[in-house]
């Protein structure tokens, strides 16, 4: 079996020109509904006083964290971290659209898709990556600000880009999900804008977590269990009908 991959985004804000081609590429690739986007470019509007100004643009998306809170929040296992390469993905068929993962993500990288009702977020264009292409946002990035690749491969563009350079993960004292986006600019210029916010339980959430969620989980378990029993029954009963050529 091949070595496991360790996919990461490497982002160089110094190269981002805020053209937003990445956002359109992502929308075109995934046909996300109007008003919803899987990826962003944060802009901090010129800082300083005329004429001594600076401005930075910081691309961001799901960080495919090594310790993803969305995965632990998901009641059905629809959100999972793929063993083979570390991508955090969503199984749309298993997603029940409960929105727990949306609340759990400290980067607000998730949303509930208005058309499908399911959880949605950056999937690192896994289908393109599997076909040897770059994710749509990376492929189209004019400034070369967005890079993607396998950190376990020393020859990948991401390994080359970070070689000998300081990298910064968008974390803070409260939150460290070990995000797999490595920024090439120091935190004061960029990470501030993509810094995670700790999820303080609000009253509604508290109720959800202590009372409602266990009930929901039990209900799902019962439903699933019932279905599974019926399925097992069918599976063993109708052996020949299901045999594939």
């Amino acid at each position, binding site marked *: 079996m091949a070595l496991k991959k360790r996919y990461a985004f490497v982002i160089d804000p110094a190269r981002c020109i*805020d053209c937003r*081609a990445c956002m*359109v590429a992502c929308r*075109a690739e995934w046909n996300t509904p109007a008003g919803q986007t899987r990826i962003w470019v944060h802009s901090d509007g010129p800082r300083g006083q005329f004429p001594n*100004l600076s401005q930075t643009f910081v691309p961001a998306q799901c960080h495919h964290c090594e310790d993803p809170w969305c995965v632990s929040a998901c009641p059905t296992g629809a959100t999972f971290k*793929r063993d083979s390469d570390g991508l955090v993905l969503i*199984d749309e068929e298993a997603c029940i659209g409960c929105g727990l993962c949306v609340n759990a993500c400290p980067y607000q990288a998730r949303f509930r898709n208005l058309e499908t009702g399911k959880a949605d977020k950056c999937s690192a264009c896994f289908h393109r990556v599997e076909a040897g292409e770059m994710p749509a946002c990376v*492929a189209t990035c004019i400034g070369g600000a967005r890079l993607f690749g396998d950190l376990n491969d020393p020859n990948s563009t991401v390994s080359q880009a970070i070689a000998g350079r300081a990298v910064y993960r968008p974390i803070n004292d409260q939150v460290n999900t070990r995000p797999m986006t490595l920024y090439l600019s120091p935190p004061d210029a960029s990470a501030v804008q993509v810094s995670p916010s700790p999820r303080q339980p609000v009253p509604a959430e508290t109720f959800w977590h202590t009372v409602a969620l266990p009930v929901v*989980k039990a209900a799902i378990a019962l439903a699933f269990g019932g279905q599974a029993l019926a399925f097992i029954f069918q599976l063993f009963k109708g052996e020949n009908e299901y045999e594939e050529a």
Partner: protein
Amino acid sequence: MEEITREQWLLNRRQFMKGAVLAGTGAALAKLGIFDLGPAQAQAGPEHFLSGPTADYEVRTLCEMCVWRCGVIAKVRGGKIEKLDGNPEHPHSLGNLCARGQSGLMMTYDPDRVLYPLMRVGERGSGRFRRATWEEALDFTAEQMLRIKNTYGPEAMIFSSTHNLSQPLFENLLNAYGSPNYGTQRSLCFNAMVTAHLLTLGIQEPARRYDGMNYIILTGRNLMEGISTSETRQLMERIAQGAHVVVLDPRFTKTAAKAAEWLPIRPGTDLAFHLALIQVIIDENLYDRAFVERYTVGFDELAEAVRGYTPRWAAPITEIPEATIYRIAHEFAEAAPYAFAHPNWRTSNFINSFQTERAIAVLNALIGLCPEQGDCIFADESTVSLGGPPQPPYPRVTAMRLDGVPWKYPLVPLKLGVFQEIRDAVLTGQPYQARGWFFSRQNPIMSLPDMARTIEAFKKLEFIVSVDIILNDSSWYADVILPEATYLERYDPLHAVGSRVFIRQPVVEPLGEARSALWIYRELGRRLGLEDYFQYLDEEDYIRQQLAPFGVPLEQIKQVGYFDAPVPERSGERTWNTPSGKVEIASETLRKAGFPAVPVWEEPPRPPEGRFYLLTGKVGQHTQFATQNNAYLQEVDYHTQDLWLHPTAAAQRGINNGDLVRVTSDAGAVEVKVWLTEGIRPDCVYLAPGFGHASRGLKKAYNRGVNASRVHVTFTDPVSGGQALTQTFVTVERA
């Protein structure tokens, strides 16, 4: 329990089901948190069903979301364009596409497209049309054009076109018809740049090379927002490699944000800045003496003329410190030949913009232009000569041109023209009255300054026909609209970049009854009795005739997307396509026409007390006036439609961030939301072009933002014919 990876599960669902169904149920329950089975078991969780978009086939073609023409690989599924990617084999895309290029499929799938020929039924401008057949629409158009020709002469028909690959066929139509009145966007954009570089270097559209460049001066060339994919990428690459980029712009653009140095120069004084650089470089012997002696004429005259243009002289004019100008002159000359001052594109700013461009061309010549012999920064884009259908001579034209070329503007190249003058000639009826207007995918109502006057001119005409994709503002006033297929649905003539020749070809069938420009002009030509000028059977036949000299089959270029033509031999000595055969630092052509032979200072007008310079300039998400109805671009053009105003100027007028303000010029007024920013000179305001469409046929773009051409005043540069867009001065007050 057996450890099973998801991949195995996906590969062999059935076997897994049979073997592990009980365990699977347990694992699924574990994922629900009912049983705590630990992470190892949890990983074998429920089946994960992942599906990404797939494509049935791919087509290699060319983008047309702007005029840079990037290579595109279009993916199609189920007969529908799914996704566009940049073609790595095209030198203009290098594998990338900008936001506009990525959004291109939404132009094809815009619900507001014109899909059938339309004929006006209501009053002109009422927007009431009925569907017609091609036969009827073309017959009627030809009948009207022949009536105008027979009654008033062919010169009574105005033609105008946007910059596109089928433009040569449109020009063929108007030349064969016999009208001298042809308007393009050029005088609203790059007349000053082209005229100055033709007169100085004999090159009309200089290409730029970035390899190894260490010092780049950008005079309002906002490459990070006025995006030319490959050039923007190359500039970013040079910046990342440490090149020193100086941006002269009264506004803190995204290019300024990336540059080493931003100089918020006073509008209209870039000429003084460059003259001062020239003065220092000559005065301190920093120029490339060998190049100047061998390849240029008029150096001594220049040295004499710029003697007084010192950094001390330029500092109060430009409001850039003397020491800064002096330092940049030194740094620029020291970096030579790996340095250049960008020749720009849109230079329609002030009536002195021609002189600014001359100074830039001369400055580049002084430091040598060529890093290596015969390998110049500035060279024409392509020298490939394609085949084509036989071309009979055009009828002789005796009528004067309505745009004043050459009788009023002797040095404006015929090809460039002075578009804004054509509109004014319709209104005055001088030197004669125009009766009809035929425009091809152009939108003069939005693009020309002083929108009210353009609408007035449109209302005065007897017949208006347009070729368009959506119901643009100008088409709204047309009598006949001929629907053109989008760039993803049609063929266009081939396009060469260097020695590589690219094809634009249909990715999908046209929607409705939209047709290619090649087809439309031929059909119209046939009805006008001009069939000899359109000797091709169909689009593919036209391209076959273009390919004929190279022996390349159409099928091959369709498959690969391009072919490589033989590279012409380079001649030994570098020559320049000017009257003297050299770089004309001093131009006898200019002198004879009564203009200064070398670049000299011309004072641009300043706004009177209480008024602002109204700046225009690109946003990275739109192209001119053509893309604002695109659903994908509307999603990403946030923060582009407000009026930029400096907080100091706002405070004096009691204006707060987000207030609605009234912007008034001599041409008109608009009301717009204000954005207070430190990123603009306190004596300037900025409004992005292209918003505030007036056509209700553009459901998404109608009245979204405001249209700056309602306030732009018409001023023309007497040398190049360029419209001076920044010479509009406005008051700003709370609405």
